[in-house]
């Protein structure tokens, strides 16, 4: 009986191809948008996680002052190299650390100029932040201690200033100094916040301090923690040591901040997940609207086929058999919408993931859920018209033209 009802349902759908298609369009769009939202949301979450991992695992960032909001920090004295020496000596959980001082400077090569972030640091910076060299070399010991004007550049700086040419050996002008390019970093791409990680120039800390900043300040200390050590513990230890060294009185707020990148990762992925859920909920509403569309057409269909229902009832169909027939038809329609929606969603998510530069993360669970949901929409919104059909009086129904 169910098989027959199914055959009958598909025949009805085939008879009115255009109408059936328009009927299920709401469900198609609903299912597709839910899947696209979830897929892209998961992709964005994955992108954030991958990007933060690429910054270096177990990474702590120590900055002067307290973070007060976007781009603002409270004024506080900078660190110096002695702080970094003390941290390495006194906190055994620290695997490596890289002191750095940064500034935004316009770099010039010939006619080309490009505003970029210049980092004064040492070779430990590359290991702490998981940078790899694509070409050239890192700083030599004499370059670091002598404060020579040598620099390693990121992929974006290379592209903007040198184009396809090999930059190694060329010179770069930063303010009043001319700096020899000795190395090119492998590209990392955009960060989760839309910041281009490859847009940087790295030079020895001493060079930066003497010839660009004109002081001995260290503004950022990046610390990597040994595997198996608790970053939480290390963070508290660092805070205690720095409070002591910077003479912060008990009860006073820290005049520096220690940030665990894992925390930042959790926070950011949390945010994208909340957004994903919200957008999916909005998309789910369109599924509901699609269901109402199906109910509407099923009601029209019952009216149109009143005589057919009368014939079926007269020759001995039970009420529940007529009910089943129309219910199966509604479910077949909505499931078909679900399947089309899934196909549309897969195409759209692959395309959009490419455009938005997030990875395409296939989630079988959401595809299945969306399909089951679309079938459920058919049951819920098909029941009322089906019951109406089943309750028809055969005498009245047969008389209807």
């Amino acid at each position: 009986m169910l098989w027959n009802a199914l055959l009958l349902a598909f025949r009805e759908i085939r008879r009115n191809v255009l109408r059936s298609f328009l009927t299920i369009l709401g469900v198609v769009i609903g299912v597709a948008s839910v899947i696209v939202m979830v897929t892209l949301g998961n992709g964005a979450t994955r992108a954030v996680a991958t990007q933060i991992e690429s910054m270096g695992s177990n990474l702590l960032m120590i900055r002067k002052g307290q973070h007060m909001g976007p781009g603002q920090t409270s004024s506080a004295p900078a660190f110096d190299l002695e702080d970094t020496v003390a941290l390495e000596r006194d906190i055994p959980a620290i695997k490596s650390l890289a002191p750095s001082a940064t500034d935004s400077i316009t770099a010039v090569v010939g006619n080309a100029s490009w505003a970029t972030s210049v980092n004064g640091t040492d070779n430990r910076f590359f290991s702490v932040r998981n940078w790899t060299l694509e070409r050239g070399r890192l700083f030599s010991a004499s370059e670091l201690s002598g404060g020579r004007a040598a620099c390693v550049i990121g992929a974006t700086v290379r592209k903007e200033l040198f184009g396809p040419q090999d930059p190694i050996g060329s010179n770069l002008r930063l303010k009043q100094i001319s700096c020899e390019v000795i190395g090119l970093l492998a590209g990392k791409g955009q960060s989760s916040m839309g910041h281009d990680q490859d847009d940087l120039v790295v030079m020895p800390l001493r060079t930066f301090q003497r010839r660009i900043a004109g002081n001995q300040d260290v503004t950022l200390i990046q610390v990597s923690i040994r595997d198996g050590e608790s970053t939480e513990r290390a963070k508290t230890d660092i805070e205690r040591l720095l409070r002591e060294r910077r003479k912060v009185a008990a009860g006073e707020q820290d005049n520096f901040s220690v940030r665990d990148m894992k925390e930042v990762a959790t926070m950011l992925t949390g945010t994208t997940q909340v957004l994903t859920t919200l957008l999916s909920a909005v998309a789910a509403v369109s599924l509901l609207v699609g269901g109402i569309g199906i109910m509407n057409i099923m009601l029209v269909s019952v009216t149109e086929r009143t005589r057919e229902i009368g014939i079926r009832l007269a020759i001995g169909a039970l009420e529940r058999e007529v009910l089943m027939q129309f219910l199966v038809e509604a479910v077949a329609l909505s499931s078909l919408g679900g399947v089309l929606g899934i196909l549309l969603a897969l195409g759209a998510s692959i395309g959009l993931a490419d455009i938005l530069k997030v990875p395409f993360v296939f989630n079988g669970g959401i595809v299945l859920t969306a399909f089951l949901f679309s079938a459920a929409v058919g049951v819920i919104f098909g029941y009322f018209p089906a019951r109406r059909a089943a309750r028809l009086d055969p005498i009245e129904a047969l008389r209807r033209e």
Partner: protein
Amino acid sequence: MTAATASAKNALLTWPRPASPDPAGQPLLEFRQVSKIYGTGTAAMRALDGVDLRIGPGEFVAVMGPSGSGKSTAMNILGCLDTPSAGSYLFRGVAVETLSHDQRARLRRHYLGFVFQGFNLLNRTSALENVELPLIYRRAPRTERHARARAALAQVGLTGWEGHTPGELSGGQQQRVAIARAIVTEPSLLLADEPTGNLDTARSHEVMELLVGLNRDQGITVLMVTHEAEMAAYAHRIIHFRDGRVADDGHAGGPV
């Protein structure tokens, strides 16, 4: 309800249908003081007013009467599509008004065949599929359905037309498909509501010959509503309804 009627009722509703033929010497259908009242109070309309009627197995009965005489109401009740307001309708000794909605549907499915004036075939559905329809509700297997539907179409002289849809068939052919659909289940009773009402004279006589043949050769009881005396003359018995009562119940002379 006595034990005897309870067992008669069970026998009526079980499927497959008991092998015993329609009981001879006992009426197949019986109206006992059947009334049907539509509406209430002063607006109440008595469509049937205490009708007594007995129709035996194998009879060919024509029902006549002007519109509003109650013949359609009587046919609806006889077809188990409706129940009396008062009185009792016995089908093979079982009071139909005591049956539930579903039980009456099963009774129609197992014992009755319907032919309508407007043919009432499913549009855009082949003749074969139209004839198969009642068998689907009987859960007959696919191969059996095909075989029986083909046989029924052959019986009405439509071999070779199985794949045609009603739109591709003439009125007479459509009515023959409808008759095939009614007899494919080998019913005890065939109810025909003005089966020739939409047909020209030649086609009408063909359809009547077909009904007479089914009645004679297969012993199917035929109950037919008609306006035309010429068609009623094919029946053994003609019942005239007037103002909700049986005005005349006599035997006709047979085919003209």
